[in-house]
C-alpha cells in the first residue's frame, strides 16, 4: 500500500519533467532539421540559379506583387512619422530637423523591419501555403517519383526569390516613406524644402545608415524566406496542417525579425 503511494508520486514527477522536456526536444529537433534543410537549399542553389526563369517567377510572386502594399505602407508610415515628429520637434524649435528624423528612422529601422514584417505576411505566408499544398496533394512526392528533386525545383527558387526581393522592397519602403515625410513636412506643414533635404543629406551617412539598413534587410530576407519554405516543407499534409504552417510562418517570422533586428542594431550602432 505504502509502496504504491510512493510509486504514484514518482510517476507524477516523471510525467512533469517529460511535459517540460517534450516541447524542448521537439524544438531542438525541428531547429536541427531546419539547419539541415538550409544546407540542402544552399546545395541546390546552383541548379535554381542556372534555370533562372524559375527564380524569376518567384521574384514576380514574392517581390513584384508586394510592391503595392510595401509602397502604400511606406508612404503612410512616412507621413505619420512626419506629423508626429513635427509635433514634438516644434516644441524645441527644431522643426527643421524633421527630415533627419524621418530619414534616419526609416532608413535604419522602419524600412527594413516593417518592410520585412509586411513581406512575411504578404509573401512568406503565400510561399508556405503553396509548398504545403503541393505536399498535401502529393505533388512533391510525384516529383521525386520522376527523379526531379523538389528542393531544387520548388524550394530553392522560392528561397532565392525572397532573398533577392527583400532588400529591394525595403529600399522602396524607405524611399516612399521619405517621400511621404516630404509631402507632410514641406507641402502640408510648410517647412522649407531646401533645409528639409539639406539637413537630411548632411546628417544621414551612406555607409553607416543606408548600407547598414540594406544589410539588415538582406538578413531579414534570408530569415523570412527560410522560415517560409521550411514551414511549408515541414507542414502536416492536411488542410489543417497547411493552415497551421501558414500561421507559424507569420508568427515565427515576426519574432525572428524583431530579435534579429535587436542583435544587428546592437552590432551596428553601438558606438555611434
Amino acid at each position, binding site marked *: 500500500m505504502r509502496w504504491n503511494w510512493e510509486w504514484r508520486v514518482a510517476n507524477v514527477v516523471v510525467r512533469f519533467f517529460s511535459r517540460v522536456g517534450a516541447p524542448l526536444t521537439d524544438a531542438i529537433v525541428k531547429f536541427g532539421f531546419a539547419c539541415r534543410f538550409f544546407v540542402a537549399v544552399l546545395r541546390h542553389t546552383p541548379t535554381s540559379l542556372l534555370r533562372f526563369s524559375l527564380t524569376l517567377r518567384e521574384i514576380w510572386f514574392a517581390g513584384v506583387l508586394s510592391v503595392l502594399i510595401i509602397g502604400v505602407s511606406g508612404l503612410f508610415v512616412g507621413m505619420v512619422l512626419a506629423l508626429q515628429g513635427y509635433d514634438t520637434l516644434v516644441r524645441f524649435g527644431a522643426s527643421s530637423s524633421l527630415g533627419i528624423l524621418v530619414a534616419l528612422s526609416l532608413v535604419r529601422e522602419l524600412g527594413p523591419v516593417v518592410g520585412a514584417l509586411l513581406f512575411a505576411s504578404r509573401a512568406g505566408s503565400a510561399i508556405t501555403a503553396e509548398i504545403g499544398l503541393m505536399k498535401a496533394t502529393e505533388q512533391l512526392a510525384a516529383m521525386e517519383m520522376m527523379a526531379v528533386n523538389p528542393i531544387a525545383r520548388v524550394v530553392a527558387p522560392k528561397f532565392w526569390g525572397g532573398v533577392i526581393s527583400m532588400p*529591394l522592397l525595403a529600399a522602396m519602403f524607405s524611399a516612399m516613406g521619405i517621400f511621404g515625410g516630404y509631402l507632410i513636412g514641406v507641402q502640408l506643414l510648410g517647412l522649407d524644402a531646401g533645409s528639409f533635404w539639406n539637413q537630411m543629406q548632411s546628417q544621414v551617412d551612406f555607409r553607416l*545608415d543606408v548600407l547598414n539598413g540594406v544589410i539588415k534587410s538582406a538578413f531579414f530576407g534570408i530569415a523570412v524566406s527560410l522560415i517560409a519554405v521550411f514551414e511549408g516543407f515541414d507542414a502536416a499534409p492536411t488542410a489543417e496542417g497547411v493552415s497551421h504552417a501558414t500561421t507559424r510562418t507569420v508568427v515565427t517570422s515576426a519574432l525572428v525579425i524583431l530579435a534579429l533586428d535587436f542583435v544587428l542594431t546592437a552590432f551596428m550602432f553601438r558606438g555611434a
Partner: protein
Amino acid sequence: MKRGMIDFWVGLFAVAGAAALLFLALKVSSQSTQPASSSYTITAEFENIGSLKVRAPVKSAGVVVGRVTRIELDPERYVARATLALDNHYHFSRDSSAEILTSGLLGEQYIGLEPGADEHNLKQGDRITITSSAIVLEQLISRFLFSKAETAGEQAKEHTQ
C-alpha cells in the same frame, strides 16, 4: 501570366528597387565620414571636454574641416586628449588654437579651430597647444553665484561700517 510579362515586371521591379537605393544614396545621404586616406590626425588636450562625442565635427570659420576620431583621458596629467582627423585639403598653422563650442543653446558640441600666424603648418601627429575647454553650465552658474555673494558680502560690510 506569360513568361515575357513576368520578365518585364521583374525587370521593372529590379529597376525600381535600384532607383530607390540610388535615391537613398544620392538625395538622402552623403559620405560624411571621411576615408582615412585623405585625412591627417592631430591631437588637442583639454582640461574639460564637456559632452564632446566621437564623430563630432571640427569646424573652422563655421566650415566642417574634420571629425573627432578618438577621445581619451591622459592617465598621468588627467587631461582629456581628443584626436582630430582633418581633411588633407586644409592646412592650419602650428599655433592654431582649438576650443570646444556648442552649436546653439542645447545643440551638439564641436571643436572650433582658430588659425594662428605661424609659417609652419600642423603635420600628422602634431599637438595643438593652445586650447580652451568646454563651458560647463554648472560651473558657470556657481562662479556667477559666488561672485554675486562676494559683492553682496562686501556691500553688507561697507554698510555696517
